[in-house]
């Protein structure tokens, strides 16, 4: 039946907690309230307060405690009430969790998931709109995923929970209730590290993920209709590790690459992707590798400014046209 992005996350949590009794939930207001966004709704009733645990406002504790439980074989699913607050747990993630297996000489594992509701476009302003992914995609030992569809939201969350490494799971707040999908009955997963081609095309490769994936598809349809341009759209889905093969394959096919993300342009993962393309696809390129991202500022609150700084379908359309015309 039809599920929203949000409900599919909730369903994945229900199913995984039923499947594996080592899975438990730790976070702020996740139990009785069911989470600020209702992602953990019903879990307390279904699994009891031993496995669905409200914490005080202590992000470092949430992640650190997750690490302690994880090395002993539990599979904690940790919630940051807003992805922005992940900065308060930074050391626990990039030093404690990311290096755990390494500094134990391979004789330990840290199977935890950090769910981080992220993204802008909901008047969340500076501290409820951030896209923190690129702080983590540079840290070996972590895995980072960012689903753009309800199917991937469910399938990637299940893979993340079953994965034996720390996985940061960025769920886009704007997608929670704005997208619906018919999901297959029964258990399915989406593999970590594998991008998905959402649309085949010949003229240009549009590489994106998460919040801007749907805007990118819309833009591709518009330019097809209005300009007869055939745009290939690659949804990365996983940001660490990057699916380098898929990135190179599409660019080698079309000869032009446009990278789109809602994260800020400077320092966003688009730079790394552009570098990979520039190094590995040089002889295939018929034009410069271009990027569309949020302007280099903070997530301004007031509507005209928020509108101005964020990527949107029109900006993507313009970027496609100018690159295609190159």
């Amino acid at each position, binding site marked *: 039946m039809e599920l929203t992005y949000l409900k599919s996350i909730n369903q994945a949590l229900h199913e995984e907690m039923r499947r594996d009794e080592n899975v438990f939930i730790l976070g*702020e*207001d996740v139990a*009785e*309230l069911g989470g*600020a966004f209702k992602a953990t709704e019903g879990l307390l009733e279904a699994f009891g307060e031993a496995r669905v645990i*409200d914490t*005080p*406002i*202590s992000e*470092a504790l949430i992640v650190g405690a997750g690490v302690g439980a994880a090395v002993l074989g539990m599979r904690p699913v940790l919630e940051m009430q*807003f992805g*922005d*607050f992940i*900065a*308060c747990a930074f050391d626990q993630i990039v030093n404690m969790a990311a290096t755990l297996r390494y500094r134990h000489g391979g004789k330990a594992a840290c199977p935890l998931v950090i769910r981080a509701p992220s993204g802008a476009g909901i*008047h*969340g*302003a*500076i*501290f*409820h709109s951030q896209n923190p992914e690129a702080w983590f995609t540079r840290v070996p030992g972590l895995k980072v995923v960012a689903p753009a569809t309800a199917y991937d939201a469910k399938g990637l969350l299940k893979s993340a929970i079953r994965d034996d490494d720390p996985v940061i799971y960025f769920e886009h707040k704007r997608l929670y209730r704005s997208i619906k999908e018919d999901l297959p009955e029964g258990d399915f997963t989406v593999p970590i590290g594998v991008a998905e081609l959402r649309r085949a095309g010949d003229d240009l490769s549009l590489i994106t993920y998460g919040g801007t994936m749907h805007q990118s598809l819309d833009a591709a349809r518009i330019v097809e209709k209005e300009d007869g341009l055939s745009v290939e759209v690659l949804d990365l889905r996983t940001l660490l590790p990057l699916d380098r093969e898929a990135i190179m394959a599409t660019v080698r096919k079309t000869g032009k690459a446009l990278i789109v993300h809602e994260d*800020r*342009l*400077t320092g966003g993962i688009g730079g790394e992707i552009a570098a990979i393309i520039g190094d590995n696809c040089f002889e295939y390129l018929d034009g410069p590798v271009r990027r569309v*991202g*949020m*302007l*280099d*500022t*903070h997530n*301004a*609150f*007031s*509507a*005209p*400014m*928020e*509108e*101005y*700084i964020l990527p949107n379908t029109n900006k993507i359309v313009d970027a496609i046209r100018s690159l295609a015309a190159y």
Partner: protein
Amino acid sequence: MPEATSARSDGTRIEFELQLYYWMKLVRAFEERVSRLHRQNKIVGGVYSGAGQEALVTGVCATLREGDFISPLHRDLGVFLVRGVDPGRLMAQLMGKETGLSRGKDSFLHAGDLEHGIFGATSMLGSTLPVAVGAALKFQIKKEDNVAVAFFGEGASSRGDVHEAMNFAGVRKLPVLFVCENNRYAYSTPLEKQMAIEDVADRAPAYGFKGYVCSGNDLLAVLEVAERVVARVRGGEGPALIECKTYRYHGHSEHDAALYRDKDELIQWESRDPIPRFEFYLEKKGQDVRRIREEIDERVRKIVQDSVDYAEQSPLPAPDEAMDDLYATPIPNGTGNRGG
């Protein structure tokens, strides 16, 4: 609108008390109008009502001076009004207008007004306490007799930053006052899930200074302890913590129906409302409260309405202003992606 300090010096006690009453009424009226504007979609984003907590904000701020440093929490709209921030600019701030404190850059109370000694917080709860400690450090280094006041919720008290801030303040005997607004809930999380102790004030001795507990809904009680403690802190006796027991009438935010609380609890606390309680005191003092109330209601109604008119007539920021105010010392070549 006179500042607390001036009111203290050139007013008599009763004038001062009437001023306090006026402030509570103004804050309450402003809060309720803000909630209504949110329902009308004229204020978007998170709105955190402080209705019910006016007494503690008013009482503490009334004991402060110009030059003191204050970091309010996300519900402390009252701090702005009592410190004399123009209500119109405050309302414009909430509506994201150009004339607001942050010029539309951030929402609700994530904006400061340093001219009135108010520091703009981030969303990250507890993170302002180290900042207030740094302000106190400046006062100590420069031998100024100002104080820094950090308001924080009992929920924020669980953050590591709060610990680091209080510990260092204790070590250096800094002129900083920590004011805990204990309203029994952090969003949906009740006290017993936040801490294994009764009073946040009991944390103070663990840092080498004193903690005080008072009824945050009793303006006179707040005032009494705040005047005493602020004087000590200002006098160089080191930091202190005042915990004010209080309650928020609304949900955590206007989006929150607060189904996790039971009705009786709310009713009990509404019966402790600071405003009627203070009116009763004024009556005992022989004031014609009925007349005063009507007069102040009228005054306040007008101020709030004017602030709404001002805010609504104020322009929204220009889109490309989103690129302003990033740097005080301009950078050559700008950054990569500036749009336009």
